[in-house]
């Protein structure tokens, strides 16, 4: 028994070392930095300890803007992308011909290079000296006036960011949901048909509960992913997100560490811990809600 225990620990050692070194230690470190005022990573010195970092971050207008942006992004993109993905998946699984073709088309964004995607969005939205972008051409066609989606009003920029995010996360959700739908035993549908169940009722009473664990998984990972959004905003609006007013919380953390206003690891740590608290809270709420509505 004793021997076995020792062996077990030995086998676990690589994983424990790896996790401890690259996950637990940095996490603890960040937590500590967030309470150390003016920490300097070069000289390893700080002035004092306390909640000053948090107070600074929470009063920083850039941070508040980032929090606002992130929340808008999360609240819009997670339900929309999951809902649209569900509709597309249900559509996909109810057609026979060309299903594989459509599945491939919908999955393409997932395997496409981010830069290529950025280029596509540029063509769609960016206003240049030569062209107003495809979307503006469409707006003009219907009698509207051009909108600058990249450097223009806040709502236009937010729209592009949400659109881009939804478009990028969609393929994975469709992939998961189509396989979840395919794994529902056909007999349930047959039984429902024999009992004269309407299409809508089959969907809400059978399909949805059956795939609810997968939907729940997508919502949780969607929330977490959206809270950590950063690269999408950079791809669209460039690195100076604060100036564009499109920063996200992770973007703020990055800027505090390395950006133009960089060199403030303490503030960055405090912001990171705040983000962690937000994500944790939301996830716990999700779990509580799912206990009531998700069937396993």
């Amino acid at each position: 028994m004793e021997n076995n225990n020792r062996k077990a620990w030995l086998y676990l050692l690589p994983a424990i070392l790896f996790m401890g070194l690259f996950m637990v230690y940095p996490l603890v470190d960040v937590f500590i930095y967030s309470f150390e005022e003016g920490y300097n990573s070069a000289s390893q010195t700080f002035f004092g300890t306390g909640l000053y970092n948090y107070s600074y971050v929470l009063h920083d207008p850039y941070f508040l803007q980032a929090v606002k942006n992130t929340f808008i992004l999360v609240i819009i993109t997670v339900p929309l992308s999951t809902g649209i993905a569900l509709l597309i998946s249900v559509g996909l699984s109810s057609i026979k011909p060309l299903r594989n073709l459509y599945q491939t088309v919908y999955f393409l964004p997932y395997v496409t290079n981010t830069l290529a995607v950025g280029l596509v969005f540029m063509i769609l939205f960016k206003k240049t000296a030569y062209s107003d972008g495809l979307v503006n051409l469409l707006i003009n066609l219907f009698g509207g006036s051009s909108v600058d989606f990249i450097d223009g009003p806040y709502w236009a920029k937010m729209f592009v960011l949400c659109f881009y995010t939804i478009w990028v996360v969609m393929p994975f959700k469709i992939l998961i949901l189509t396989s979840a739908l395919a794994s529902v035993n056909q007999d349930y549908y047959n039984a429902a048909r024999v009992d004269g169940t309407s299409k809508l009722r089959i969907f809400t009473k059978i399909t949805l509960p059956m795939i609810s664990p997968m939907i729940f998984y997508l919502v949780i990972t969607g929330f977490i992913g959206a809270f950590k959004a950063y690269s999408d905003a950079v791809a669209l609006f460039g690195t100076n997100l604060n100036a564009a007013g499109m920063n996200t919380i992770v973007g703020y953390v990055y800027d505090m560490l390395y950006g133009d206003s960089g060199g403030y690891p303490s503030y960055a740590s405090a912001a990171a811990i705040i983000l962690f608290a937000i994500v944790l809270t939301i996830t716990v709420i999700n779990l509580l809600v799912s206990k009531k509505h998700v069937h396993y």
Partner: protein
Amino acid sequence: MKVVLQNLTKKFPNRNKKVQEDVVAVNDFTFEIPDGKLIGLLGPSGCGKSTTLSLICGLQKPTSGKIFFGDDDVTELPPENRGVGMVFQNYALYPHLTVKQNILFPLENLKGKDRLTKDQMLEKAHQIAKLVQIDELMERKPSELSGGQQQRVAIARALVKMPRVLLLDEPLSNLDARLRLQTREEIRRIQRETGITTIFVTHDQEEAMSISDQIVVMKAGVVQQIGRPQDVYNSPVNLFVAKFLGTPPINVFDGRVSGGRLYIGNDCVMDVGGVSDQDVTVGIRPEGFVLCENGPLCCKLSGVEVMGRDISIVSTNTSSLNPTIRSIISAENEVAPDAEIVRFTLKPNKVFLFSKADEARISFGG
């Protein structure tokens, strides 16, 4: 409600694209199921019995032929308009709903004037639950039920809307042996009490024989024989039916008819009047053997199994087409365990002759 099947045929396109020929799952099935009877569709796997059930249910459309419920032509109707109840092989109970919600489900689908009030629905659900004896389990989820209980819930769900026809797909295959015995009695009882015409599919001949009013034996999409279980057992139309029914299975021999006498090997075993001289396949039911000191059929004894009421004699014969011959005789007979050979006379009504050419039965006049 009587159910009439008229020249029912179902073809599936061949999976193997190189072969143009369609797969015929059900071939020209014509049968009238009388009102209020329990019918067993019986056959080895892949014989088209489940397809027949799907056709009656409406989940699949026949390639040709017609289906009538009473006088209504339901061939083109979708399943929901046929008024059928179906119990699936795996029961297909909705796992996220309680037993009560499962049973209520079909009632909640009703619309317009058929729709009942909440109280009426609950009352109906309780009635049906009482009938199948699950009224204690109404608040449980299917995963908290045993196989037999799930089976009952599935039957209750199929019955609650009072279908014109009840269909059961391999209803007992997911149950253990003891429960199977019990449940098949239960199905019989429920069917009698409700009087609903019931069709069930099984590959287990014992199951079909024990509870059906009539059985339909199928092979490769073609109906072989239809009749009361005992009639089919006592006079099978061909070798396939004879082999398929009965446990232990029928013993099959190579035989020869010559001058109105039946020979197995060199033993002249009995008179068969009116049969022309030819080679035949002989089927003898295990209970068709009578132990007799100077009986005509001589077999090498390889073992005796005592099973209480009966004894089963296992022997071999060079003309036998099965590796061993199994005969069942009353336990009052004594067989010396060290005997080398056993001799039998045969009961003529337990001996069947089949043509070598097409395996059809050749009748003989005792």
